[in-house]
């Protein structure tokens, strides 16, 4: 009997072994395959090779056409400047908030205020901001006519200003929550409280002490997220369409315009522009690295000087950091509130702060047209998130069962889809699908979303999954449960909350995707995000409000579920409720 059992056991193990050991490789393939194939698909037409459009030789003509575009120097400068500025400002705000407040009760409040903003889709946040700062927006309305004397919206170019300031502002409001969350994760490993106490005991002011003892450790941990923020800010499209300058726009926006131009000959030029965008991001990262080294050098000298910092300056910096962080949060929240008001607004004239009346007419009129894009959005997001969760769990479980050690290089690979500019490989993705004669459909869009959903789901789940007490596993195994039973009956239920949170993050990422949906779907897969951005130029605030709100709801609902479901399921399980 026992002999029989011992021959069955290895067979069962072998069957299970079919998928799990391959999971990491499969995951990398799903995530990086489209990026690499897309890059090649971009490079070929950039060098004049695109048989479908009659390009069969290799030439530099596409680049010549690109360089002949008079707006190029300005577009390039804009992309670089906006990217560097948005990243630097976001990082400084986050670092100063942590330096000034980490470990205090105020910090907990900032954290609770900023974290939910992470789920707000970029486009929805940008629309909200646009309404706040526009000449006819809430801020000007609040000051008019008593403060400004304006009876009509002033003729000022605040939105889409040529220097890209409103674009930088919009990016900062979204990147601050992201970097803050990443910094929090890094802080939990750096034991900041002890270092800070030690520095303060040696007479250092709080902010100075934190910057000198904690920041160098933390920055090493958040370097990749910072690079991702830089690459994203340099090449973002949807936010730049809504908040960025128009003539010329940033390089990425111009590339997308060429790609969507009815004149197919412009595809070559677009591909060349996409390659330039990639080079620009590489150059931007190089520039950032140089700045890192310079700051590190100066910092080392500053630390060696033994300067303790001044209490008053310290207090000033703390208040400034708080004010900046609050501004970012309030801007997004007020902007969203503005969307709510607009979507229910009846007659609303300048400079009234609120509409004359509220009505359901906007929703009644545009609501039915929401159904299609809403369903599309939810199907794509649910599929992409489900696949991402499956692959992530398989990777983590393979890591656990076969004792694999996650390499540092693997983390780089995870960040690669977030660092390579979307436009650089999605352009190629689209070109490939055209030459392959494959119409861009829902499946292709879902796979493109998966490229971006996967890294976020993995990053969100890996830490809590790995932090699970391994002895819980040994106990369950010693009680006679095999690895599968431990996974389904013990580990997954215990980690229900982080699993749902990771799924919610993935869902929100998918809902917010603009470019992959537009380019890979060839404009034929309308989601809430693509529809909303398409409405941007129309300027009808009521429709925009309706769409932005629907988009917001689609992204936020899973987070609400991720909080409520574990509370409901574990309402009688104190051991799982706290924390």
């Amino acid at each position, binding site marked *: 009997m026992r002999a029989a*059992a011992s021959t069955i056991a290895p067979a069962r193990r072998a069957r299970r072994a079919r998928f799990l050991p391959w999971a990491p490789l499969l995951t990398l393939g799903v995530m990086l395959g489209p990026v690499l194939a897309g890059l090649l698909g971009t490079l070929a037409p950039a060098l004049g090779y695109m048989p479908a459009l009659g390009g069969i030789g290799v030439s530099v003509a596409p680049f010549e056409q690109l360089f002949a575009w008079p707006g190029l120097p300005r577009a390039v400068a804009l992309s670089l400047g906006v990217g560097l500025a948005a990243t630097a400002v976001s990082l400084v705000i986050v670092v100063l908030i942590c330096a000034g407040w980490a470990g205090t009760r105020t910090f907990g409040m900032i954290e609770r205020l900023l974290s939910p903003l992470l789920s707000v889709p970029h486009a929805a946040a940008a629309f909200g901001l646009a309404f706040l700062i526009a000449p006819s927006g809430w801020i000007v309305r609040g000051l008019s006519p008593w403060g400004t004397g304006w009876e009509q919206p002033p003729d000022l170019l605040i939105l889409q200003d040529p220097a890209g300031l409103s674009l930088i502002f919009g990016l900062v409001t979204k990147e601050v929550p992201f970097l803050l969350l990443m910094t929090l994760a890094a802080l939990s490993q750096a034991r900041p409280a002890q270092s800070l106490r030690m520095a303060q005991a040696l007479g250092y002011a709080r902010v100075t002490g934190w910057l000198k003892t904690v920041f160098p450790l933390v920055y090493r941990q958040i370097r990749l997220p910072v690079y991702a923020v830089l690459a994203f800010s340099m090449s973002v499209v949807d936010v730049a369409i809504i908040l960025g300058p128009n003539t010329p726009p940033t390089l990425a926006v111009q590339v997308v315009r060429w790609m969507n131009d009815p004149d197919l000959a412009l595809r070559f030029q677009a591909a060349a522009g996409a390659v330039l965008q990639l080079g620009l991001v590489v150059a931007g990262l190089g520039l950032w690295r140089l700045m890192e080294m310079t700051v590190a050098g100066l910092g080392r000298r500053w630390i060696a000087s033994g300067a303790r910092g001044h209490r008053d300056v310290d207090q000033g910096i703390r208040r400034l950091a708080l004010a900046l962080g609050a501004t970012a949060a309030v801007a997004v929240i007020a902007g969203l509130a503005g969307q709510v008001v607009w979507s229910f607004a009846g007659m609303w004239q300048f400079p009234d702060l609120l509409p004359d009346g509220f009505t359901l007419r906007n929703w009644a009129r545009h609501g039915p047209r929401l159904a299609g894009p809403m369903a599309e959005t939810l199907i794509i997001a649910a599929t992409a998130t489900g696949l991402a969760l499956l692959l992530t769990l398989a990777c983590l479980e393979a890591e656990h069962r076969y004792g694999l050690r996650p390499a540092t290089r693997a983390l780089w690979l995870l960040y690669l889809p977030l660092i390579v500019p979307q436009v650089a490989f999605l352009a190629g993705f689209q070109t490939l699908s055209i030459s392959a004669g494959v119409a861009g459909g829902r499946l292709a869009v879902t796979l493109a979303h998966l490229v971006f959903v996967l890294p976020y789901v993995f990053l969100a789940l890996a830490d809590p999954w790995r932090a699970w007490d391994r002895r819980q596993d040994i106990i*369950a195994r010693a009680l006679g449960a095999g690895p599968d039973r431990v996974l389904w009956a013990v580990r997954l239920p215990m980690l229900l909350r982080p699993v749902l949170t990771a799924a919610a993050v993935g869902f929100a990422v998918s809902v917010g995707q603009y470019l992959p949906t537009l380019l890979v779907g060839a404009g034929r897969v309308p989601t809430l995000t693509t529809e909303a951005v398409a409405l941007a130029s129309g300027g009808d605030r009521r429709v925009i409000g309706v769409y932005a709100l629907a988009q917001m709801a689609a992204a936020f609902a899973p987070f609400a579920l991720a909080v409520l479901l574990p509370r409901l399921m574990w309402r009688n399980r104190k051991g799982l409720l706290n924390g």
Partner: protein
Amino acid sequence: MADGAAQMTGLRFEQVVLSLGEVRLMALDCTIGPGEVLTVMGPSGSGKSTLLAAITGTLEPAFAMTGRIRLDGRDLAGLPTEARQIGLLFQDEYLFPHLSVAANLAFGLKPGLKGRAARRARIEAALAEVGLAGFADRDPATLSGGQRARVALQRMLLSEPRALLLDEAFSKLDTGLRAQVRELVFETARHRALPVLQVTHDHSDAEAAGGETVCL
């Protein structure tokens, strides 16, 4: 402690040597007979937990083991943890926080006992055995330390182990409770004729066990 090579019952270590790279951590060559207790004492880092990992089959790849471990004559090498029939108690009880007390016990109870009512009755009986009748539907997080320890013991026993490993199992309990729980565990092991290996750094644990003590 009998040392006959022919003896087939009990937990038997045959020239077991554990090492980390070139460093030899410990060597063990003995048999723990049914109902007997072997206490292993030593400072942290002396290889106690490595020994336990070798027995449960959860040795980290960095460690190497030579020799054989046999339980009732069966070589444990190559068997997954769940097939080794070794009961484990840690200093934390590791009751599954998402399951009720009864569901925790049901997790341990062999699937061979069929029928919802029969299983439930077996679980109620196990709880009554340790003075926890009526605790079946409780949330484990609401139990006291002593109650948790008893639930963990019964859960482990319901899985019908053939040997018992105690990893600092009593070190979190305060003195009075500690003696009580310890007596319950050793008494049960004797009664069921289970070989026991306990790892501890507390001499009172060794004295209470009464068996042989190995110091690392």
